[in-house]
């Protein structure tokens, strides 16, 4: 087990390194010129100033040496110069924002808790709701209750998420004022405000994302309930709900965990629509804003964070598997 985790961590590290190289290369060979972006910010860009910026930012160096500087910055402090001004960047340095000159790492640490709160609670809510709906749809399969649950979730999942979230915001906050219009506040500052700002986004995530888990959970449960060991459990004299949850769901949950692991990783990498629509200052919104103004250090940082999260989630799911299914031996 320990050896397995070490080997997987090494592999995960390599994946992250290669991803970072690809991200770096994409921006290096991409059509936009970071120097031009900075230079154009105040609208008074001259060729001379752009050349100066290119030199100062080291954009004329080879891609290998630029990547070397980037990697070195992850471990030691460095200073990023635009020729006219110097910006300090403490390790681990992911660069400084072209627009504000703020350190990307510090901003990431600042904005991440919002995304984390949104993703973890929202993800848990829709997982639980979806699976519970799926279990009961499977229990009542073929009946009107089953059709209602499956049909209802089909309708909800047919609505594009951004429209669903926009409608929720428009109707529930602006129009009917059922939910307060509040600004995201870190939980450490004011747990009440944190909760009230995130409540509707959580509920929207829960309702919009649970249908896929309902359908997946139903399928997995229906399959499990036809297994011989379910009949054995019933033959022992177990109450129906114990057969359903302790024997049925226990086995049916395994494939659901796999999907959820990857899903939550994507969510943790930034819930773009949700953050944007509900004005939550998380890394999804941050990344999207950066794309609009071509703030490359921020874009590459968000891409890198997403890659690390997906790799980690995969690892966690694989390790979790050996706890969920005793037949899986990690070696």
């Amino acid at each position, binding site marked *: 087990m320990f050896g397995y985790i070490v080997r997987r961590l090494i592999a995960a590290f390599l994946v992250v390194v290669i991803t970072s190289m690809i991200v770096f290369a994409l921006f290096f060979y991409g059509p936009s010129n970071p120097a031009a972006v900075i230079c154009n910010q105040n609208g008074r860009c001259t060729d001379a100033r752009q050349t100066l910026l290119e030199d100062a930012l080291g954009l004329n160096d080879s891609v290998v040496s630029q990547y070397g500087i980037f990697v070195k910055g992850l471990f030691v402090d460095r200073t990023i110069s635009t020729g006219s001004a110097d910006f300090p960047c403490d390790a681990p340095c992911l660069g400084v924002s072209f627009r504000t000159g703020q350190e990307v790492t510090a901003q990431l640490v600042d904005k991440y808790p919002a995304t984390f709160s949104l993703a973890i609670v929202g993800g848990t809510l829709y997982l639980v709701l979806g699976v519970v709906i799926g279990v009961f749809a499977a229990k009542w399969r073929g009946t009107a209750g089953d059709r209602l649950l499956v049909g209802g979730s089909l309708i909800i999942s047919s609505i594009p998420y951004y429209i669903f979230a926009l409608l929720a915001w428009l109707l529930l906050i602006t129009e009917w004022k059922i939910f307060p219009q509040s600004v995201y506040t870190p939980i450490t500052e004011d747990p009440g405000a944190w909760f009230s700002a995130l409540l509707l986004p959580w509920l929207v995530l829960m309702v919009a994302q649970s249908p896929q888990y309902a359908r997946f959970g139903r399928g997995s449960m229906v399959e499990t309930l036809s297994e*011989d*060991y379910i*009949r054995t459990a019933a*033959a*022992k*004299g*177990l109450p129906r709900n114990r057969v359903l949850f302790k024997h049925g769901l226990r*086995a049916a949950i395994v494939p659901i965990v796999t999907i959820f692991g990857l899903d939550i990783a994507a969510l943790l990498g930034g819930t773009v629509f949700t953050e944007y629509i509900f004005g939550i200052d998380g890394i999804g919104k941050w990344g999207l804003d950066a794309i609009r103004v071509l703030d490359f250090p921020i874009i590459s940082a968000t891409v890198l964070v997403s890659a690390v999260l997906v790799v980690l989630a995969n690892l966690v799911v694989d390790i979790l598997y050996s706890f969920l299914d*005793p*037949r899986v031996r990690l070696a």
Partner: protein
Amino acid sequence: MTEVLEGRQPQGDPADATQADPSEPFLVVDDLSVHFPTHDGLVHAVSNLSYSVGLGETLGIVGESGSGKSVSSMAVLGLHNVKRTRMTGSIRVGGKEIVGASDSTMRKIRGNDVAMIFQDPLTALHPFYTIGKQITEAYRLHNKVDKKTAKRRAVEMLELVGIPQPDRRVDEYPHQFSGGMRQRAMIAMSLVNNPKLLIADEPTTALDVTVQAQILDLMQDLQKEFGSAVIMITHDLGVIAEIADEVLVMYAGRCVEKGTCKEILTHPEMPYTWGLLGSVADVSGDTSKPLIPIPGTPPSLLNPPTGCSFHPRCTHKDKVPDGRCATELPALRAGRYALHQTRCHLPDPDAIYETEVKEKIR
């Protein structure tokens, strides 16, 4: 080991007191029909089946796949989904009527008075729980004991069914057991509450022949010790010959022949039973003699054949005048020997068997 036998605790259920007739056999199935409504029509899985098993007796139920063997036995445990099953007739377990009984009544019977052993122990045991956990779950469900006592009981049961190092194996998962060991564990689990009736649904089909013999021996030994009634469902007449006192032959959801094991194996009076006997390999006799399979396939239970359900495959139907086999369902009538019952129009089946059939199939 004697401690194990005393494990049964009286259940404080007033229904226990209403034992109708003390002389009645432990299990009485009377005119049982099990039908499943489907989109294509009504499936006549079991029709008008009657039998009884007393404590200490073993009833063998034989028949092809889909003849209603398992369906009728699962009805005894009330394992059919009530909403998707139409059940009529009567099943009395220890005097208690269970057709139409509430789920809570059934739960007290299931795994306690009546236990079941399933065909494939690999799929019938939960892959994610240890053997010990599955046994203790069954035990604690019907006995108010703490986990430690239950686990001790599980170890005792594993020892009883001949699992070496039971105190270690009790914490292992089904996939760590061999096929025979898994079936032993399954038996241990079904016997943990000292059931009075044990239904074994093809318990040896998934096992190889040597293990098969061990499991059958084990079941017989345990039956002697516990004095329980046993229903052995199988399509293997070899198993029947070894273990059964009485035999019930099923075809298309009906009992077609019933009698003591010896009667059925030596004086069968129904062409379907002849067919079953003809399909058994006899390794001690002339091995060059080909087996005689029954022609055709089992009938659809959605539209069972009119008359005798076996007539489309029967090679003797011409001996019955007026084509009655195709039009009239033969009644279950007394055979030539005591307690023997058969469902056939043939005028003197025993004579036909002696003169025509016996030579061919032996």
